[in-house]
Every structure is written in C-alpha cells, then in structure tokens.
C-alpha cells in the first residue's frame, strides 16, 4: 500500500532525514544544484551541525527541524515525520546505523541510496569490493525494510569509474545523483526483492589495504 505513495515523489513531495555527515552535505548540495528541494529537512545530531551544512540550509527554502540525537530511531524524529504527512523521505544516516523505528518501516517510504549493485553487493563500503572484483560501479536506490540493504528496489544505475575524485567522495556523489534521478523520474518501476541473506555474501567495512588497492585499480 505505502509503495503507491511513491508517485508523489515526482512533484518534489518528499522530505529528507539527514545525519551530520559529509554524505548529507553532498546530498544537500546536489539537491540544491538540481533544484530538487524537499518539503521538510530533519537533521539529527548530538553535536553542532557542520558549518558547511548550515550554509546550505540557509539557501534551502523549506521547513527545517534540528533534533539533538545521534539515533534515527529517536521517538521525536518519528513524531515529526508523522505530523508532517509527507509519505516519502530520503535518508542519509550515520555509518552502521540500523533503522528499527516502525514508523519508518511501515508508515512511510524511507528511501536509501547504496553504492553497490543490490543484492549482489550488500553491506558496507561495497563500492571498493565492486571495483576490485569487476571494475564496475553501480548505485541502487531502494525503499528500506527491516533487513540491512534489502527492500523494494526503485532504481539501479551503472556509473563511470571516477577520474577526478577518490572513491570515498565519488561514493557520496553517485548516491546523490541516483536519488535525484529517481525523484525526477515520472514512472517508477518497482523491483520487489526476495530475502537474499543466504544467497549472497554480506560485505563488511573494507580493510585500508583493500581500499588502497581499489583506488590503484582506477589509475
């Protein structure tokens, strides 16, 4: 039922739940660049919001809520989401954060971009593994469910290998680009995925040596 509400995304009828991270900064920067402005931005952080993010927030003409918490499952975030009556939220959380709040899982579409071909590359830092394995970069955008990196896939795109950026920065950029392409796409195709936990390996944080080798492959 809630997936039907994805149609509203095209008219910029969406919100953003963002952490106080570089990735969120890149998301905001790209959203502004492509004039895809959300209706509501929720930023959650215990620390002071990064100055670069603050500068961008001034330029955005929408409702902004700042929550003093480092946990997306914090009840106040859920309450704000419910009262906003926005059905679709893009999400950029802290590394390793797991969404457990039932509001996000059942009542709204929490849309997440993952820099890897899902379900083949599930987990953390999959961009490095994908470069090392097949010298290809993909980005998948999907509606989150209770399982990590699984859910209804909305858009998968292949991207060129980075020339200017290092892999870490490129990771943020392709995620943002994929989200924006999805929002601006009129007809959304939904790909329902089965539970792939047993079929595919789950990738954990890549070791610095592997990251170094992945960057070398690009030269």
């Amino acid at each position, binding site marked *: 039922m809630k997936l039907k509400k994805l149609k509203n995304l095209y008219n910029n009828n969406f919100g953003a739940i963002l952490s106080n991270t570089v990735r969120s900064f890149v998301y905001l920067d790209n959203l502004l660049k492509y004039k895809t402005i959300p209706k509501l931005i929720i930023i959650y952080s215990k620390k002071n919001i990064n100055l670069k993010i603050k500068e961008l927030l001034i330029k955005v003409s929408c409702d902004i809520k700042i929550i003093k918490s480092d946990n997306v499952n914090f009840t106040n975030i859920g309450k704000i989401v419910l009262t906003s009556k926005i059905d679709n939220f893009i999400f950029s959380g802290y*590394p390793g954060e797991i969404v457990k709040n039932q509001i996000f899982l059942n009542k709204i579409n929490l849309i997440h971009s993952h820099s890897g071909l899902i379900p083949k590359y599930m987990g953390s830092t999959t961009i490095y*593994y994908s470069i*090392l*394995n097949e010298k290809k970069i993909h980005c998948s955008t999907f509606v989150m469910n209770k399982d990590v990196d699984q859910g209804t896939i909305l858009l998968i795109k292949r991207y060129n290998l980075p020339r200017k950026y*290092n892999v*870490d920065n490129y990771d943020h950029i392709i995620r943002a680009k994929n989200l924006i392409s999805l929002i601006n796409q009129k007809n959304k195709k939904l790909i329902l995925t089965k539970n792939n936990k047993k079929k595919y*390996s*789950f*990738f*954990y*944080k*890549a*070791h*610095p*040596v*592997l*990251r*170094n*080798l992945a*960057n*070398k492959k690009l030269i």
Partner: protein
Amino acid sequence: MWLKIFLNMNYPIKIKKAYKLKYSFFLDNSLTFINSFFRSRKKSISKINKFLIKKNIINIKLEDDFTFLSLHIIYKKILKKKKVYPNEILFIKKLYQKFEIFLKLRKKYSKKFIKITNSETNVRTYILLHILVDELNIAPLCKLNCQLKLNDKLYFYKLQNLDYFFLKLLKINITNEIKKIKKLI
C-alpha cells in the same frame, strides 16, 4: 637507518589508529602505505622465524577458553579430513560476523551467540579463525578482508607468547595473505 625504522613502523602505527576507529574514516591511497604493509608483514615473518629457532617456546601454554577450544575441535576435524557439520560451519560464520563487527572475540558466547563474558579470547583463536574462514561459503574478498583484520591483531600481542605450532600457523597465514594481496595488484 632511522628512516628505515620509520618506514617499517609506518603500517602498524597507522593500522592501530584505524583499528581504534573500527577501520572507519581511514584512507591512505599512497604507494608508501601498501609498501609499508608488505614490509611490516615480512618483518613479522622474520620475527616468527627467529622465535621458531628457539627451543624453549615449545612448552609455552596459554589459558584455553571456550571459543578457542570450540574452534580448535573444528580445526582438528578439518586437519584429519573428517566431516564438518553445518552447525560447526555456522559457529565459524557467527564468529566471523562477530569479529567483523566488534574486531574482537570474547572467551565465551551463549547458544544465541550473545557474549557471556567481557574478557577477550586469546590470540590463538584469531589464528585459527584465519584458517577456518576459508571454509565458509562467502565471497573471496570477504574472506580476505577478514583475514587482513585478523592478521592486524598480531600487532597487539607479543608473539613470543605463542607456542611452536601456532607460530607456524601464523607464519602460513601471513604468507597466504601476502599471496592473495599480490594477486589483486
């Protein structure tokens, strides 16, 4: 001379910092980093070789714990080419997952794999896990990633506390790891 020492120290110092941050927010794309990785690993091998020559390490005994003993039983089975049961493979997989998340293993876990004690298992568990990870049905890069992290653990322990058998295993582990990394280059 001092420059040589510095270059040798480079990798362990950097990796200890990365370990504290659970390998997050660490990126070094320089050639010197990868070179210092190889140098450091080779230095560990020569250190092990020195210990292996000494006779007095044969009788060294470390305290056994539940996690180590369970892994040791599975390892012995594999050595004797006996059948390894699915629940034993699952045990290895759970330890692999725990290690990848927390970067340390505890002395004992419950049946639901919740830690019973806070004290860390001994270094030999990591050496055995390095070998047993190869038995898992996971992507080769996942195995290598875990094995790199397991071998990094040796920088936190004194190698002279290991007995002859485990020093030999550790040497094989490091040699295999270097081979796998060289294949990727």
